């Protein structure tokens, strides 16, 4: 089943400057999809279109459709869409509007019209899911950057959406914080079947988790498909090759220079294991 379907979608905040240009793509339900591409490629706008903020909040002119969970966004409203799509903005701190952690989660649930007893239960569950149990009474201002982000994720998860959209979630985190974040997203994706759509510059972080890459440039889809397909295209067609993860620069260079075929590495260990095996074979061959 398709969680997000974008059909021939074009959009301009102000006519005629198109930020999205005839976009067509599918995101399968339960997939972990990453939006890649240089700044200004239209990644944020696409996220906003999936959440319905384009066009409900920003206006502008558009053609084509975005369908989320079977509903065409223009036929729905943002509060209704908020039950299907949870959005974490790049400036997630501004998304947090209450004084304490539990109030933040409760705020989302109140917006859904949930009863007080259910709110208490659901707040507990949500905080556990994002690893903030024990911080219920903590002041939002006292949290670290990573914790604030987990709270922002929790605050949108509380509405029980089927799709989670995150815009450059790791830009203010350190490497450990980024790894923890993607572990959390990976777990939400695997365990809850949550569809994840994330904008990220650091492709290395995505490799262990993402099953679909969408490469955008100047408002157009350059290529969508498996990470291997998209990364190989970036390499062969030299589209932002500097954005390729070092691991894949190694893999693709070796394949090009030696003619051997290597697996689609998702982490360093897979690369090391395969290279060791290949090198051992070579050594035996010449022994």
């Amino acid at each position, binding site marked *: 089943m398709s969680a997000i379907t974008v059909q021939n979608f074009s959009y301009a905040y102000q006519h005629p400057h198109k930020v999205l240009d005839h976009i067509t793509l599918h995101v399968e339900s339960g997939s972990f999809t990453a939006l890649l591409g240089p700044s200004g490629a239209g990644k944020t706008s696409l996220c906003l279109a999936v*959440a319905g*903020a384009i066009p*409900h*909040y920003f206006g502008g002119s558009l053609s084509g459709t975005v369908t989320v969970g079977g509903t065409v966004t223009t036929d729905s*409203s*943002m*509060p209704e869409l*908020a*039950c299907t799509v949870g*959005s974490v*903005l790049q*400036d997630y*701190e*501004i*998304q947090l*509007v*209450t*004084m304490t952690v539990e*109030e933040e989660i*409760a*705020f*989302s*649930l*109140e*917006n*859904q*019209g*949930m*009863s*007080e007893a259910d*709110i208490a239960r659901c707040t507990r569950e949500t905080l556990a899911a994002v690893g903030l149990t024990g911080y219920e009474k903590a002041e939002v*201002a006292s949290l670290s950057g990573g914790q604030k982000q987990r709270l922002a994720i929790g*605050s*949108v998860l509380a*509405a029980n959406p089927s799709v989670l959209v995150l815009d450059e979630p790791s830009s203010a985190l350190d490497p450990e914080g980024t790894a923890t974040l993607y572990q959390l997203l990976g777990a939400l994706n695997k365990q809850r079947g949550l569809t994840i759509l994330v904008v990220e510059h650091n492709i290395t972080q995505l490799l262990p988790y993402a099953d679909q890459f969408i490469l955008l440039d100047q408002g157009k889809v350059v290529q969508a498909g498996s990470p291997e397909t998209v990364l190989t295209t970036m390499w062969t067609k030299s589209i932002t090759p500097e954005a390729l993860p070092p691991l894949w620069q190694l893999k693709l260079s070796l394949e090009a220079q030696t003619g051997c075929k290597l697996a689609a590495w998702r982490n360093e260990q897979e690369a090391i294991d395969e290279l060791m095996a290949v090198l051992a074979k070579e050594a035996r061959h010449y022994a």
Partner: protein
Amino acid sequence: MMQKFAPLTKLLLTLFITLWSIMLQSMTALGLLIAGQLLLLVASQVRATVYKGIASLLLFAALLAGIQLALSGDTTLAITTALKMTAMTLVFFILLATTRMQDLSIALVSQCRVPHEYAFMLTAALRFIPDFLNESKAIQEAQACRGYRSQGNPLKRLTAYAAILKPLVLKAVSRSETMALSLELRGFANRRMSSFRSRVVLTARDYAAVMVMTGLSVFILNFC
């Protein structure tokens, strides 16, 4: 203790105390009003930071009294003015320290018929004061590294201050836009407010408190 009352009751308390502070003229009565409010704060076990705020309020009141005295030479007037100001401002400390911002906003919306957006703006503004102060500090530091100094005559200082003010205003504007967007994205415009209302509904305790406040107003009007 004040946490047990509905936000509306506390809003009314704020209104009444403001009224009383204006009506009361005797130093003893104003002193009692202040003492009573301080007792309420103690009984409500508010956090230590609240008392810090009150300390600076008292300092400001003393300053006000000093200026008043210097200008008019009337000791009674100076002290009364300072007491009035303290009594009036203290009640806001009680309100803000013992009420969840979100509850206050809901009470304003559902009971005082303040439009949803305005009420939320008020509470969100309070929530973002610390952020705003941090931002202003960060901008001052950034400009200090470019040679910004606050020196010279007031006019010079004022013009120099543009280097701080402009980024601050731009940032505040862009942040408030982002905040509005994020609220929409979280379903804030949803008008099904059932769970909101149950928590701010008035109980017998609240009605009793309102009656006591009304009675006191009548008392002050007639006898003070």
